């Protein structure tokens, strides 16, 4: 083993990253696009007065759960949002929310078509599975390094790193959901002369919806777990507060901001689950 020289893996990857960085125009376009989405969300959140934001969240939750009336959840939301406001984390919270929503949206836009493709093609599925495993298990910190090289400092590389880390569940669950559609329903759709697109939009996607949405929910939670990591490359928000608290050995400040992340996570989780709840009666 000693006779065998060490493989220069790291220098290969450096060269590859340098080579990729040459496509400046391409990465600038992505930066502008993602930056546009971020600014859009942030603009809306900055525009909304705090009371209106709370009314929308609480009212939305009430409406989504109008059958079951989750009073517990609704009071949790009110208390939680008041806490965030009281601690002076409001703008940080909206920044984190922007980061999470942007990366979830991009994960959805890229992930769902990839999942559909995987469901339709065995070869593509075989190629893609190890890539998804790689994306999900590679320590998330590692993505930060090339992200800075390509996209600079700030929210955009944070979003990109979150997308890479958080997208796999959406892809996987879309694939799974479509593959789980019973074979006789596919036969029925085919036997009546559905085209591939009709089958996809009228049968497969509607029936895969709840599985797919479970994937989106997972992606959202994973991108929330990225907020602290993303703050290391300059993404603003609650993660930033936590990161600073670590630097200053400030346990109190760390927990105060951490609690705000937990509150945000629970609200996002419950709302996406409520959206996903089926309107079709079970037998």
């Amino acid at each position, binding site marked *: 083993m000693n006779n065998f020289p060490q493989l220069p893996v790291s220098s290969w990857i450096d060269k590859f990253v340098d080579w990729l960085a040459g496509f400046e125009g391409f990465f600038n376009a992505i930066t502008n696009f993602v930056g546009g989405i971020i600014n859009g969300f942030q603009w809306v959140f900055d525009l909304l007065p705090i009371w209106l934001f709370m009314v929308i969240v609480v009212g939305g939750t009430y409406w989504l759960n109008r059958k079951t009336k989750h009073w517990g959840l609704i009071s949790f939301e009110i208390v939680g949002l008041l806490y965030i406001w009281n601690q002076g984390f409001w703008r940080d919270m909206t920044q984190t929310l922007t980061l999470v929503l942007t990366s979830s949206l991009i994960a959805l836009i890229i992930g769902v078509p990839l999942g559909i493709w995987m469901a339709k093609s065995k070869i593509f599925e075989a190629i893609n599975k190890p890539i998804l495993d790689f994306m999900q298990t590679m320590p998330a910190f590692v993505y930060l390094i090339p992200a800075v090289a390509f996209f600079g400092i700030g929210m955009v590389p944070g979003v990109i790193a979150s997308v890479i880390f958080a997208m796999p569940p959406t892809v996987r669950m879309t694939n799974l959901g479509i593959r789980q559609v019973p074979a*006789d329903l596919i*036969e029925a759709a085919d036997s*009546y002369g559905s085209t591939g697109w009709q089958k996809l939009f009228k049968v497969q996607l509607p*029936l895969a919806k709840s599985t797919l949405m479970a994937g989106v929910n997972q992606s959202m939670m994973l991108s929330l777990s990225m907020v602290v990591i993303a703050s290391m490359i300059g993404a603003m928000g609650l993660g930033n507060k936590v990161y600073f608290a670590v630097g200053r050995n400030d346990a109190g400040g760390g927990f105060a901001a951490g609690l705000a992340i937990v509150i945000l996570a629970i609200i996002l989780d419950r709302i996406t689950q409520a959206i996903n709840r089926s309107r079709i009666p079970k037998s």
Partner: protein
Amino acid sequence: MTAKLQVQHLTKIFGRRIPKAQELLKAGKSKADILKSVGATVGVTDANFEVNDGEIFVIMGLSGSGKSTMIRMINRLIEPTSGHVLIDGQDLTSLGKKQLLEVRRKKMSMVFQNFALFPNRTIIDNTAYGLEIQGVDRDTRLSKAHDALELVGLDGYDDQYPTQLSGGMQQRVGLARALANDSQILLMDEAFSALDPLNRKDMQNELLDLQENLHKTIVFISHDLNEALRIGDRIMIMRDGQVVQTGTPEEILTQPANEYVERFIEDVDRTKVLTASNVMIRPNIVNIDKDGPRIAMRRMLENEISSVYVVNNKREFVGTVDASHAMDLIKQKITKLDSVVQKNVPTTGPDTPITTIMEQISQTPIPYAVVDDQKHLLGIIIRGAVLGAISGNEVSEDE
């Protein structure tokens, strides 16, 4: 009669090394030999048949006989390995993707064993599915779907979801979905096999009633010989992917082509094994604790019968009431049936072999009541049904 559908030399081989398997098949090797030597599974071997316009053609065989593969090759849900399928003389096996879609949309509709209704769509939207994908506008397709639902006796369920309906009703929707398309050929894949015996019988009757007016060309898959004999104009028996015999029910019964068919139809002589529950039919009942003579009269008029069966609140069998007695009560303004119930009705258990009660049944004018240990009324046996069952024309539970 003209042939609506022609199947010529249709063969399906699943798996690898198909050309080699085809060679072996031509050389006359058996299905098992081919599986052993090249690892390919033969689904259907060189099937030839014609289905006439307006005919119910039953393909019958046990599981693994290739009947499901056969029906799926007709609309190319399964791509044939070789051979031809012709509809009105047009060869489907040579059609391109677009033309095939057109044929599936316009010329044939399929009904599935487990209904295959879309759980996310309402009943009316399920029924209109075929029209929807053809791009028919909403008003037209909904009104056509509504007509189809009415035809199968499912009025007023438009906005329900499939899970809210019973199995029999779900399959009615499946049938309505096929009828809404207005295609001439219906492919029915074990369409009634998932239903309980009484429901199955109802659906068979309904299909025959519909067929009288609609004159569709129906290819019906079944593993139940009684069903095949009952609804088929002609029957094709398959075994191990091969067609064993094709003929009218009469021909199959009187001139079985070989031992296999003989063994099959032996089952039809069921007097030895038929039990009361196999031949009973659904009675018209009134509840003595709830219904009075007017309800009883009404039920008799509705069903054009002269007596009804009486049960109590616990569904226990009490007796019968006939029309003249019910009329008397109405004239005397008595609202309770108790005084006129006739209790000397012959009863029997559901597991009683028909042979043991056959003579009594043919001698008593009143149908036998079939009751279980708890005295619950399960059904009644009428003379006609027994004779029908013995001659193989009545469905019985045989799974």
